[in-house]
């Protein structure tokens, strides 16, 4: 078998180019076939990493570090690769039915986005990571702008500036690191960075992490996310909320764990504090949101907050790391499902308003189930992946006596219940007679069932917790 690492990057580039040349109809088929192969490759890679127990390397074109580019995959990378392809595949099916051949820009941009993400997960040096970050950011901005309306363009531009500032900060950090150590390879840097490193290194670490937090929409850098994710077409929102923000989070985690571990101890409380604020503020805004997509987008702000709670809890028992990995997976699946379900609701009712879903329980049971199951994951109710993540997070917080965090986690779950049930409740309400007469479009089965499949996966992934944790352990 050939090495899966380069193919995970090359394949999406190939089908993206193909989709650009062949048009949306054939492009969609190409994209689906390509993504299916990528999914298989990602699983094969995970199996290899898991059995090897350490990271795998691949020198691109036979030229390894320091002169060439080295690709590397450990358990964490493999997990995110699987998640990315696993979420993208049903979403592409969804997108094909959603756009119905009308959106030529989607497939090439989605391909470049996936290529960028896969490359990001596989990169082993800081500069290469910068390039992939930009690739992901530019493709994502293009997807947000795809609708072409003034609002969407404005949201895209806001997003573009946020992501450019974020990666600019990161780049300056990389420059400083190279200036001090003369290398950007993560493996080479790990032994060099110590607690008595020169101030330039501290400054660089701060810049890089701050830039990445801006890109992950951590409170208070979240301002760009709700308009960008809430304004894009449903499949795009799903891709962005489920996957793209996880890319920069992955990078933060990676840097935090490896080269910067000696530096970050002192400030570990800061991301947790911001994460806690994100949970409360994001949930509160979701509770007040009037538009469905806005609600789901604010929920992303809140859910990302959980990811940042793990930093002060990272330790030898790895409970917090496991919680973070589980939350990334569970939220990725659930948020993709939720945006997909909301897309159906909007398409059928013709309006993007929480008030207008009254009575859909009777007409769109599958979609509503998808929304509900995704909601279970977001609330952290059993047996979903979100529940396991929350369980481990509370456990880790208790072991370190962090009562404040336990309270925030539990409160966040209740607030999530409020905004999820706001929608469900409305859906069970009998519509008034005037609303019942409004002409509605019939739902497309593919849209409903792909949303449902993603949602079911987000709940059932809780039963495969052991495998996910085992994969995370491999070489991370």
């Amino acid at each position, binding site marked *: 078998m050939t090495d899966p690492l380069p193919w995970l990057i090359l394949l999406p580039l190939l089908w993206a180019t193909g989709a650009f040349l062949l048009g949306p109809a054939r492009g969609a088929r190409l994209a689906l076939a390509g993504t299916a192969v990528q999914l298989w490759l990602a699983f094969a890679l995970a199996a290899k990493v898991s059995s090897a127990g350490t990271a795998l390397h691949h020198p691109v074109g036979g030229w390894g570090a320091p002169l060439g580019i080295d690709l590397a995959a450990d358990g964490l990378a493999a997990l995110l690769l699987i998640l990315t392809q696993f979420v993208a595949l049903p979403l592409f099916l969804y997108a094909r039915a959603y756009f119905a051949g009308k959106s030529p820009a989607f497939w090439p941009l989605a391909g470049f986005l996936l290529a960028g993400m896969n490359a990001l997960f596989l990169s082993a040096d800081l500069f290469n990571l910068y390039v992939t970050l930009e690739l992901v950011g530019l493709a994502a901005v293009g997807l947000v702008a795809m609708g072409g309306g003034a609002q969407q363009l404005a949201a895209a531009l806001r997003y573009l500036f946020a992501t450019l500032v974020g990666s600019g900060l990161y780049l300056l950090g990389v420059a400083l690191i190279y200036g001090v150590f003369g290398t950007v390879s993560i493996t080479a840097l790990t032994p060099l960075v110590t607690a008595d490193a020169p101030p330039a290194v501290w400054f660089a670490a701060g810049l890089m992490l701050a830039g990445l937090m801006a890109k992950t929409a951590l409170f208070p850098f979240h301002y760009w996310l709700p308009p960008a994710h809430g304004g894009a077409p449903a499949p795009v929102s799903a891709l962005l909320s489920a996957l793209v923000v996880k890319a920069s989070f992955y990078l933060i985690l990676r840097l935090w764990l490896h080269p910067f571990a000696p530096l970050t101890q002192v400030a570990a409380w800061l991301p947790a504090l911001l994460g806690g604020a994100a949970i409360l503020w994001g949930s509160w805004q979701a509770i007040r949101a009037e538009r469905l997509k806005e609600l789901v987008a604010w929920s992303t702000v809140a859910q990302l907050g959980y990811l940042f709670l793990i930093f002060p809890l990272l330790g030898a028992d790895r409970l917090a790391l496991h919680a973070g990995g589980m939350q990334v997976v569970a939220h990725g699946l659930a948020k993709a499902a939720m945006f997909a379900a909301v897309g159906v609701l909007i398409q059928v009712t013709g309006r993007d308003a929480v008030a207008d879903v009254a009575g859909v329980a009777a007409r769109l049971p599958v979609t509503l*189930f998808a929304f509900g199951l995704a909601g279970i994951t977001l609330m952290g109710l059993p047996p979903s992946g979100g*529940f*396991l993540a929350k369980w481990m997070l509370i456990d880790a917080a208790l072991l370190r006596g962090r009562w404040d965090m336990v309270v925030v986690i539990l409160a966040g779950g209740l607030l999530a219940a409020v905004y999820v049930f706001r929608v469900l*409740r409305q859906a*069970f309400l009998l519509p008034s007679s005037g609303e019942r007469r409004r002409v509605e479009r019939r739902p497309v089965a593919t849209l409903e069932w792909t949303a449902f499949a993603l949602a079911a996966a987000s709940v059932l992934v809780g039963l495969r917790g052991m495998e996910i*944790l085992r994969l995370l352990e491999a070489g991370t």
Partner: protein
Amino acid sequence: MTANEALPLAVIASSLLPGLAIFALPERSVALRSALNLFGALAKLALVATLLAGVAAGEDYAFRYAVLPGIDLAFKADALALLFVTLSAVLWLFTTLYAIGYLENAPHRSRFFGFFSLCVTATMGIAMAANLFTFFIFYELLTLATFPLVVHRGTPQAMRGGTIYLAYTLLGGTLLLAGIVWLNALAGHAEFAHGGYLAAGDAPNWQMQVIFLLLIAGVGVKAAIVPLHGWLPQAMVAPAPVSALLHAVAVVKAGAFGIVRIVYEVYGIEFAQSLDLLAPLAVFAAVTIVWGSFRALFQDDLKKRLAFSTVSQVSYIVLGVALFGPLGTVGGLVHLVHQGIMKITLFFCAGNFAETLGIHKVSEMDGAGRRMPLTTLAFSIGALGMMGAPVTAGAVSKAWLADGAEAAGMDWAIWVLWTSSLLNAAYFLPILWRAWLRPAPAAWPEERIVARGRRETAWLLLLPPLVTAIMTLAAGMFAESPGSPLEWAKLIAAREYRVAH
């Protein structure tokens, strides 16, 4: 997987799989849906019978699946679990029959029966959960599965009831989760064990007490212990079969059963006593018993009166648990079953009155006994049972509870039981008097099902309350014969205390 591992799973699957299949059925395939429901219910009964025979013979039924390192999804069909499982399985069958009759021609039946089956599945999981982690999973599943049933009618009123229900139960679930994870962090992850798995020295006493408070508050919401009972009267907006299920089997019993497990098999009765936890619990139970009965006196809405009666009656179970001594334990456990049979009878009958004649209020009950003698007879048996009249199941529970209170030296508890019985009589007897002795009005509020020949209402509505009323009498009359709920409760108590002493 051996047969002994597969059986608990099969019990859960026998309602889960039909439930999932029913969701997928179109609205109009009534026959197939009913067949699936009944098949599931009968299959479950057969499986439960196998389990009962096995457990009586000393077999172990357990299943384990690792979810996280050191944390298992674990099921165990022990004697205590089977007490609840059997009750749920039997009453599920009758409630299903009743619901098929009740919802004839109603909209959204696939959704209703789907969630109905999920609800029973959750109850089975709660009963057979072998550790707090598993218990919590099904406890929350129960919340989620009952919400669509409570708001089934889709009216703003139903929504309000549903929202209040959710607010209470989700908050309770959060407290429970906090308690479970905390306990897990202190004492490790352990399975329920006779006599409890905690011991002095696992952690400082105050922490054990706070955790106990969290756990009991978490399950106490569903058991409707005052002051956590506010949701129960609100949830009355649900259709009658749902109320029957909520009150007799699923929700409140899940709470009460949780308290039993926590006191006996997590803390252990002796350890709980040494931490001074049982006396306050008994006080809360006593307050609930009296307060629920007292509030019931002033409800004109029939279902609301029954709801407050449930608040009161479920705490008999809690009181029995909190009385330190095997006699109280037997009384509490047997009441878990007896209250279920009696209360489901009452709710079935209330549903019959409402569906057949449009009677929703106590003040409209005049003369109902002449128009619907069989339903009223069943109602009377249930009501007399609740009061603790001789020969009924209620008398057995109350007798054992009173003995338990005496043995534990808590004479005030006997007074609580007496007061409650008097109050029970005060709010049930006027109903019986109106139904049997007052003349019928010229026209019923809303007569929907016209009597044909000797039948007073649809036979699917009539049969279930009659059967459960007969069971109420049988459980009272044959309490001492083998296989009765009382004998089974004695078996459980013997196992709990054999280890404790």
